[in-house]
C-alpha cells in the first residue's frame, strides 16, 4: 500500500475524492468524457494508473467502469458514433490527441506541455492489452492463440516463438495444463483455462498495461482463485487495471481502487483506505453493501 499519498483538498463536495499515487504513472486519464452517440456516459473522469500495481474499478452496473476501460485502449473506435474527449496519457504522452479538450485541461492543470504520442491505434493496442468478460479464444490451436499477437509485430523463428509461447503460458499459470496439447484447439479448454489462455495471449506481446473487464465473472470459484493468483504474480511485470463486481476480489488483489457512480469517479484511493475509511457516503454505502 502507498502510505505517503496525499489527498487533494477540494472545496466542491461533488468533486471526486482523489488520492493520487505517488509512484510512476504508466497510464492516466484526465477529464475524460465519453459519448455513446448523443448520450454521455463518462463525466470528467480522472484515473491514474501506477506502474506495476493493480488498480481496481468498482461500482454498480452501468456506472461506466467498462466504458472507461474500453476508452483506455480505444477499442470503442470500432463503433461509429462512440467518442471520447479529454486526455489519456501513456507514459506521459497523449494518446487521445483530442484538440478540443486541450484548452479546457490547460485551464485546470496549467500549461502542462504534453506531446502527442503519435501512435497508431494498432501500435497503441500492442502496448495496452485487454482481456474480456467472456473468454474469447480464437478458433485455432492453443499455440496459435498465444502466438497471434506476436506474429502481428515480429518475425520470430520457430524456436523463439516456442519460447515466447511457453513463457507466456507459464506466466498465465496454464503451461502445466496444456503443454501436451498445444496443437489442439483453444476452444476445447474449460472456461477458466480459456480465460487464462486469453491472459497468456494478452501478455505474449509484452504490453505495458493489461486491462481486464470482469475477467472472473464467468468463472467458478476455483478458476477465479487461480486467475487472481496469476494476476498477483503478473503485477511484477505489468500494470493491471481490473473492472470487477466482486468487492472482495478488488480488496484482495488491488493496490488502488476507484469507485465509480453514474459515470463519475467518486473516490480513488489506496485499496485498504477505500474499503476501511471511505470518505464519500456513496462509497461507504456501496462497499458496505447498502446499495448496488
Amino acid at each position: 500500500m502507498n502510505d505517503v499519498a496525499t489527498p487533494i483538498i477540494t472545496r466542491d463536495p461533488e468533486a471526486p475524492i482523489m488520492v493520487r499515487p505517488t509512484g510512476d504513472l504508466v497510464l492516466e486519464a484526465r477529464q475524460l468524457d465519453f459519448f455513446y452517440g448523443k448520450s454521455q456516459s463518462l463525466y470528467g473522469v480522472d484515473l491514474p494508473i501506477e506502474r506495476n500495481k493493480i488498480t481496481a474499478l468498482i461500482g454498480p452496473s452501468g456506472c461506466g467502469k467498462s466504458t472507461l476501460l474500453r476508452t483506455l485502449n480505444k477499442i470503442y473506435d470500432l463503433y461509429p458514433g462512440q467518442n471520447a474527449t479529454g486526455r489519456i496519457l501513456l507514459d506521459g504522452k497523449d494518446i487521445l490527441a483530442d484538440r478540443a479538450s486541450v484548452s479546457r485541461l490547460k485551464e485546470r492543470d496549467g500549461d502542462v506541455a504534453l506531446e502527442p504520442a503519435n501512435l497508431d491505434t494498432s501500435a497503441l493496442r500492442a502496448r495496452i492489452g485487454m482481456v474480456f468478460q467472456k473468454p474469447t479464444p480464437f478458433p485455432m490451436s492453443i499455440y496459435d492463440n498465444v502466438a497471434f499477437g506476436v506474429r502481428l509485430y515480429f518475425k520470430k523463428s520457430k524456436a523463439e516463438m516456442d519460447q515466447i509461447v511457453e513463457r507466456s503460458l507459464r506466466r498465465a499459470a496454464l503451461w502445466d495444463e496444456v503443454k501436451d496439447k498445444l496443437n489442439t484447439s483453444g476452444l476445447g479448454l474449460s472456461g477458466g483455462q480459456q480465460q487464462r489462455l486469453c491472459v497468456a495471449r494478452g501478455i505474449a506481446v509484452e504490453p505495458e498495461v493489461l486491462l481486464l473487464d470482469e475477467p472472473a465473472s464467468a468463472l467458478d470459484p476455483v478458476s477465479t482463485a487461480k486467475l487472481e493468483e496469476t494476476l498477483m504474480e503478473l503485477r511484477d511485470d505489468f500494470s493491471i487495471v481490473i473492472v470487477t463486481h466482486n468487492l472482495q476480489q478488488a480488496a484482495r488483489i488491488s493496490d488502488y481502487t476507484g469507485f465509480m457512480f453514474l459515470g463519475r469517479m467518486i473516490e480513488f484511493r489506496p485499496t485498504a483506505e477505500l474499503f476501511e475509511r471511505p470518505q464519500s457516503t456513496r462509497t461507504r454505502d456501496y462497499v458496505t453493501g447498502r446499495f448496488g
Partner: protein
Amino acid sequence: MDRTLRRKITNSIFVVLCAAATLVALAFLVMILWSLVAKGFGGIDANIFTMTQPAPGSPGGLLNGILGSILMCALGMLLAIVVGILAGTWLAEYGGKTAYGQVVRFLNDVLLSAPSILVGLFVYEILVKPFHGFSGYAGGVALGLLAVPIVTRTTEDMLTLQPNTLREAGMALGAGRGFVIRSIIWKAAGAGLFTGGLLGFARISGETAPLLFTSLGNQFVNLKMSQPMGSLPTTIFQFALSAYDDWQRLAWVGALLIAIAVLAVNIVGRLVARETHRP
C-alpha cells in the same frame, strides 16, 4: 380434468402431429430417392462414364454431360464463392447498416428467388448474343449468378452470428479490422460458410433452364469452355422427353448421378467441417 393430465394429453397430441408432419415430409423424400434408385441404378455401367450420348438404340453413356456439368458447376461455384463471400462479408462487417448496404441486401434477396430461366435469358443477352455463340463460359456464369445470392446470404448470416467480443479481442491485440476478419472471423464461421457453398452447389447442380440458353448442350465430349457444352440436366431434359426407352433410362441414370453428387459433396463437406472444427 386436472391440469397435469390436460397438459399430458395436449403434449401427446402435438407430439403425434409433429411426428406425422415429419413422416409426410420424409415420405416424399424417400419416394423421390426410391424412384431415382429403382429406375436409375440398373442403368449404371462402365459405359455411362466412358461413352458419350448415343443415337437411339445404340449403346452410350453420359460422359459429355458429366464432364460439362463438372466444369460449369466448378466455374459457377468459383464465381459464387469469390463474389458471395466478399459481398456477404461486406454486408456483415462493413456496410450492412448503410443505405447502400440495405439496397444491396434487398436486391440480393430478390435475386435469391429470381426465376432461373430469367437468369439464363440475361446471360444469353450479355454473353451469348454479343459473342455469337453458346459456350460453357456462359453456362458457368449463369449457374454462378444463381449461387451468388445464396452464398452471400449465408455468409452474412454466419458472420453476424459471431460474437463482437471475438472481433474486439483480435483488435485489442492490435490487429487491423481486415486481418481480424480474415484470420479469426472467417475461421470461426468456417463451417457456416462451407454450408453456404454446399447450398449453392445443391441449387445449381440440377439447374436446366439457364443452361438451355447459355451452354446449349453438346453431344460430344468438349473440354473447351468457349464452345457449346453438354450437361447432365440438359441431357436429362432432352432424353426424358424423348420417345426412346434407352434414352429415358439414361435420363434416370443422369438424375441419380446428380442426386449422388449432391449427397456426396454434402457428406464429405460435413466430415471436413467436423474434422477442422473439432474442439
